[in-house]
Each structure stands twice: as C-alpha cells, then as structure tokens.
C-alpha cells in the first residue's frame, strides 16, 4: 500500500445508502477506510422531551415516528409500560390482535431491510419483490388500523379497533403464500455466489463484542448468543406460542442476513398459531379509566422489536402527564459498533456492513 494522501469523505447526509439522513465521516486511504465517525442527529425530533408535555394517550402517535418501519412494536412498548405502571389488565382478544399485528409488522420491517440491503449491494430487483409482499401486509394493517405506516393502533389497555370481518381468514390465507415467496427469496438471492462473496466474513464480531456494545436483535443473535426478549422475558402472550430463536455462528453479515430471514419464518409460525387460537368473542379494551393518571412511580419494560430490544422507561408523579419518558432505541445502540467494524474495510464493504446492521434513522435520532 502506497501511503497516498488520506482523503476525508463525507458519506451522507445525502447518500443513497445511508437509509435516511445519516452521516458518516470516513478517512480513507484510496478505497480503504482508516477511520469512520458516525454523525447522528439529523432527524432528532426530541420525542422524549415532547412526551413530557403530553397526556399519556397523546404520546402514542409520537412513538410511531421513531421506528417508522415497525410502528406496532413501538406502540406496544409504550402502552405496555403505561399498563405496567397502572397495573391494567389487557383482554385476551386485544393481546391476540397485538401479537398478530406486531408479527406482521416484523415481517414487513424485515422485508424492507431485505430489499434495501440488497439494493445497497447493487441488486435492484429483490427490492421490488420484497415490496410486493410488504404491500400485502401493509394492506392488512391498513384494514386493521386505518393507516399504512404510522398505525397508532395500540391503546393503553387494549387496541383501537377489532379485526374487521374476514380479516383473520385473509391473514391465514397469506401465510402459505408468504412461505412460498420466502423459499423463492432464498432461491433467488441466498445461493447467489456474488451475494455470498459480498456478505460472508464481512463485519465480523464476537458475542463478547456484541454484549459489550450492548447490541440486540439479529445483530446479537448472529454471533450465536441466543437472546430474544420474547423467549427470555416473555411479554404479552408469547409464551403460548411455539417458536424458535434463530441464531448464527460467525457473527458476519451473512449470519445477520440468515437470522433475519429465519425470523420471518418464525413470525409466520407465530401468526399461524395466533390465528388458529384467535378468540372470536371478547372485548378489545380493558377497564381503562377516563383520565389516565398512573400512580407515582417508575417502570421499565422491554420487548423485542425487529431491530432488537426496545425498552421504555416511564417515571410518573401521579399526574396526567409523565415526568420522564425514555426509550431504549435498539438502532441507536446497534449503530455503536459501526466505527469498529469499518476500520480497514473498503467502500463497498461499508454499505454492506451498514445495510446489514439495519438501522432506522428515525429511531437512531429519536
């Protein structure tokens, strides 16, 4: 390597592969990255600060905008936190609807990741395939919540709407179709030699590193550490369903890819079981007081979002507005390992690694 002059390159905030307004200042020697510094905050909206001045119910729409690809899980973690604080009982039917919608959302989110990650790697077509299936899921969620992206479907103590007639059957019909398509995805991409060369052995780290950087979700499970809040700290009614936690071995970009692909399968399994056990009767909203005023105290709950462990901390002083709301946003934590991974890699690997981490900038910047 000739020691040519180092070059400072601003990747982003306007760059096709930064998935939003994310900036990465990389110092390069030719195409080799010497140092990478992520610069976040371009999309910071101060959700947590705004929440301090809102009624408890008014905060729900703000949670949609954090991880806009899986708004359901964000809704849920917030509602779950308030419910824990108030000790509210959630009706069974509502829990089923929550689980089905969350898992559908997880599939939709992973599909976006699948498409965009391959787009980063230079394959254009898978993106459109992924969006075909995502479109169907968005239609389901649209029928359920009246919105395609920012659902605000969850309510404190239940959900907003009951499933429309025939909705569960439609979702059940979708399950075999999605399985078939998933097999097609594997045929199309997973066995591709160029794809394997691009992701195998790229952005490798160990389980220890992952824990030290407090990674979660597929970014943690790709190293072989089996940790999933749905299993390890079950919430909602996840303990009623049978599903596996897919883990990787090497902790490289390919394992992250495989873990997410298998997670789609497991989500399908959960939806299948949930649809079978779905109670026909029952209310969708628990006994919730007119004015939500949790008793003084604090709580922290965590659930598994498509991107990892999302947590919500609420401190209440017994008023109608929270004293402090704090979200543990998994994308933000997952991003922390990026500078370590990028050193010594090339520009092409940069997009592969960044795409493999699967960040959503709305969540990173809060």
């Amino acid at each position, binding site marked *: *390597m*000739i020691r*040519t*002059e180092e070059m400072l390159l601003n990747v982003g905030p306007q760059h096709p592969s930064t998935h939003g307004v994310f900036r990465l200042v990389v110092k390069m020697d*030719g195409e080799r990255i010497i140092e990478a510094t992520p610069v976040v905050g371009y999309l910071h909206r101060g959700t947590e600060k705004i929440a301090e001045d809102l009624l408890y119910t008014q905060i729900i729409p703000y949670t949609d905008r954090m991880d806009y690809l899986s708004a359901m899980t964000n809704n849920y973690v917030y509602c779950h936190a308030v419910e824990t604080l108030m000790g509210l009982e959630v009706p069974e039917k509502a829990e089923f609807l929550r689980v089905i919608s969350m898992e559908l959302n997880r599939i939709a989110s992973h599909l976006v990741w699948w498409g965009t990650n391959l787009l980063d790697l230079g394959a254009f077509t898978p993106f459109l395939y992924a969006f075909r299936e995502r479109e169907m899921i968005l239609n389901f969620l649209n029928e359920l919540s009246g919105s395609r992206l920012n659902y605000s479907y969850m309510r404190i103590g239940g959900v907003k709407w009951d499933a429309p007639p025939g909705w569960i059957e439609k979702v059940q019909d979708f399950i075999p179709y999605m399985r078939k398509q998933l097999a097609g995805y594997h045929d199309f991409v997973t066995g591709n030699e160029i794809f394997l060369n691009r992701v195998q052995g790229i952005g490798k780290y160990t389980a220890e590193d992952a824990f030290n950087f407090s990674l979660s979700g597929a970014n943690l499970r790709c190293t072989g550490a089996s940790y999933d809040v749905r299993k390890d700290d079950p919430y909602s009614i996840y303990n009623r369903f049978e599903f596996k936690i897919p883990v990787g071995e090497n902790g490289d970009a390919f394992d992250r890819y495989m873990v997410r692909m298998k997670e789609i399968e497991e989500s399908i399994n959960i939806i299948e079981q949930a649809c079978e056990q779905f109670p026909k009767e029952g209310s969708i909203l628990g006994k919730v007081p007119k004015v939500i005023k949790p008793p003084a105290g604090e709580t922290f709950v965590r659930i598994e979002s498509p991107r990892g462990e999302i947590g919500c901390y609420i401190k209440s002083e017994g008023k109608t507005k929270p004293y402090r709301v704090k979200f543990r946003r998994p994308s933000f934590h997952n991003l922390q390992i990026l500078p370590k991974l990028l050193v010594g890699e090339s520009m092409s690997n940069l997009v592969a690694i960044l795409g493999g981490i699967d960040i959503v900038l709305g969540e990173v910047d809060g």
Partner: protein
Amino acid sequence: MSSSGIVFSIIAICAILGGLMMITLKKVMHMTVAMILTYFSIAALYVLLTAEFVAVAQVLVYSGGITILMVFGIMLTYHKAENRDEEKVSSFRKLITFLSVATLGIVSYFLVAPVDFVAEEIFVGDHTKAIGEILYTNYIIPFELVSILLLVALIGAVLLAKKDKEEANE
C-alpha cells in the same frame, strides 16, 4: 495534393500539437490527455504506412499505458500544487535545452531532407499473417527474448512495488 497528403498533414499537425501541448501544459492529467492525441496520431500514421497491425498494437498498448500513467499522476500528485515543479526549473536551463534540442533537430533535418525513397508495396495480402510468420521463423529468438524480458519486468515490478514486510506488520 492527393487525399493521402491531406490526411498526412492533418495527422502530422495533430501529433505535433499533442506534443507541444504536453510540454506547455502544467498539470500531469492535461499532459497525459495531450499525449493521447499524439499517440493516436502516430497510430493513424502507421495506418497510412499500411502497417495496420502495428497501428492497432500502438493503440492497444498506449490506451492501457496512458490510463496507468494517469492513475499514477492522480495517486502521487492529487491535491498537491502541480505547478510547483515548473518554478524550480530555471528559464536559463530551459533555454539551453531548447537551443541544443533545436540544433539537433535542424542538423537531423538536413540529414533527412534529401532522403527520397520510393514507396513500394512490400507485401500484398494479409500483413498480420506475414508478420506472424516472420516473427515465428526469422525472429523467433528475439521474440522469445522479448517475452522473457516482459516476464522479468512484470515480476520485477511486482517485487519492487510489493509491500515491505515491516510495513505490512504496521
């Protein structure tokens, strides 16, 4: 003037123009681009001399060669003030060099001017085939030697440019 005469004049003007631009321009990139003109004109000249194979070889070798030189020019001088190198050469030295080179040119002109051979059709048919046959019969030993030279140059260049051990460990 026949059409070949016109073609020759155009080619000659292009070649000289490229050369002059190479000397006068300041940036390495501009110089290399100017040289494309010259090398390409020389290739055209070969076509005029019915040496198609040599012409094509010229284009093939120099299009790659120029690209490499450009890359080196960029790699080693990027961001640096390129015209720094002009200032340091004194105009006296330039003048002296110019005068001596011009003298050489004029002297050789008088040597060359009386040359008046007649062009002959040296070979009717496929030049390329004939060149190949001669290369593999009369000139087989020089040909093999050149291939060995190229191989040695290749290996030598790789070794020279290879990373030092301690540097790789850094």
